């Protein structure tokens, strides 16, 4: 069943930053980046379990990541994603006159999926087109 629309906010996480310093191509960087953190109420409402894969579907693209129960609750209706090439698939190219992308105020639906999280090398191949 389709999930309803949520606000998606990207943020920076120290563990992810550390992993990024150590290498963008590491499994650790992927594990810490390709994640969406949801309020426990939303996890319940969407029928999701911690660690389950979900597709985050935005207007500009869709990306498969792992759903986690947030330890920064309460933030019902707000989904948190570490800033990364995965979250950047959801950020539109169009901006307002500030020409600053909407990294922190995205919209998207979150639905359970069987698909795998794409490794960064695959994201890159897609960017190369």
């Amino acid at each position, binding site marked *: 069943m389709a999930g309803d629309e949520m606000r998606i906010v990207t943020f920076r996480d120290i563990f992810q930053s550390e992993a990024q310093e150590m290498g963008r191509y590491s499994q650790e960087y992927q594990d810490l980046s390709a994640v969406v953190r949801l309020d426990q109420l939303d996890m319940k409402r969407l029928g999701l379990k911690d660690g389950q894969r979900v597709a985050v579907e935005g207007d500009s693209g869709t990306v498969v990541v792992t759903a986690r129960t947030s330890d*920064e609750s309460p933030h019902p209706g707000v989904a948190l994603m570490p800033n990364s090439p995965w979250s950047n698939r959801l950020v539109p190219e169009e901006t307002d006159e500030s020409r600053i992308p909407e990294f922190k105020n995205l919209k998207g639906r979150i639905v359970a999926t069987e698909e795998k999280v794409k490794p960064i090398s695959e994201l890159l191949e897609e960017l190369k087109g």
Partner: protein
Amino acid sequence: MAVCTGCSLLCEDIEVALDGGKMGKTRNLCRKGLGHFKSIYLDRARPAVDGKEAGIDEAIDKAAGILKNAKKPLIFGWSNSTLDAQKAGLELARELGAVVDDTSSICQGWIVEKVLRKEIPTCTLDDVRNYADVSIFWGSDPSSSHPRHLSRFSYYPRGEKRQRGYEEDRTAITIDVRKSPTADISDEYYRVLPGGDAGLVEAMISVLDGKIPRVEDKKKLISLVTNMKKSRFGVIFPGLGMVYSLKGRKELLDALVEKLNQSSRYSVIPMVGHYNMRGFNQTLLDQTGFINRVSFQDGVESGPEHSVMEAAKTCDAALVIGSDPVSSLPAAVARRLAGMPVVAVDPHRNLTTDVARVVIPSAASGLEAGGSALRMDGVEIKFDGVVESERMTDLEILARIKEGL
């Protein structure tokens, strides 16, 4: 003592033991800084042309050729280079008639600009340590992004007029959409909804004007503003949360700071991420009168059409220095960059070096090369490299590309 270039705090108290010329044990680094130091032995970039390993001279020649033949080259990145390298890069940009933009264009730029143009009051982090009694982390989470901010400056330390630190002398307030690690240890956490910052600022101004604010929880807001007003030396540390949320209502930040300054003293220090982004904005401002988004195509011009978001559409080649825009920009923009000839100068392999037609590996500044940079509060910090390296510095690479034209 070494300096960490892992973020714009440029911590100067890093101890490094050398072990046969290699980096051994370190002290005082935060987790992010330790990752940064260790990274010099991981995933380094190698000189390459068209995806094949090449000699460094060949790579530089090829880079010069690409840039010279471009009608409208973009030079992007800058914030992870030393002040001297930035100056050398600007000389190259003038010679090429390039469009120049840096990471501030998609993050803290507009707040940094207000500070550099002295439109809002600021102070140094040393002032914060010595005098600040209220630190407001607004859409910022230093515990994650600038991990030693609270311990070196804004919350825990003893300072000249703040002998009792956080226990009695300092109040930390976090305003954020999520209960971040910084919010967790703050004295007060105020939750704002995504995009709700402008409304919150307006409500705060109402309270400061003695009016009843139009918010749900009036009591909580009034108590927050009362605590802010009580301060004798308050500092707002805006993070990306505020930057993105107020970008359409920038004047509200000035209005709030002005209001707060009627009854106490308030400064703003933008939570710049990269270690020398502020240095680049200052250097460009000194040279051109603009902090970013400058074109040298026809004299000196600045405007949103020269932002990286637009330049990715209109430029026909790019030189990227010390930055990974293919990873950090929206995918559609990254795709545009991937579609043009890119010259990447970076210590590490990343998505941008992987799409680049030419890769020129550089020495990591602060670790393998010395120089100086402006800390997030504008204080200049000088540093030496920690270990020897054969790799060229950004400064040398940019000068060599210029010669190659």
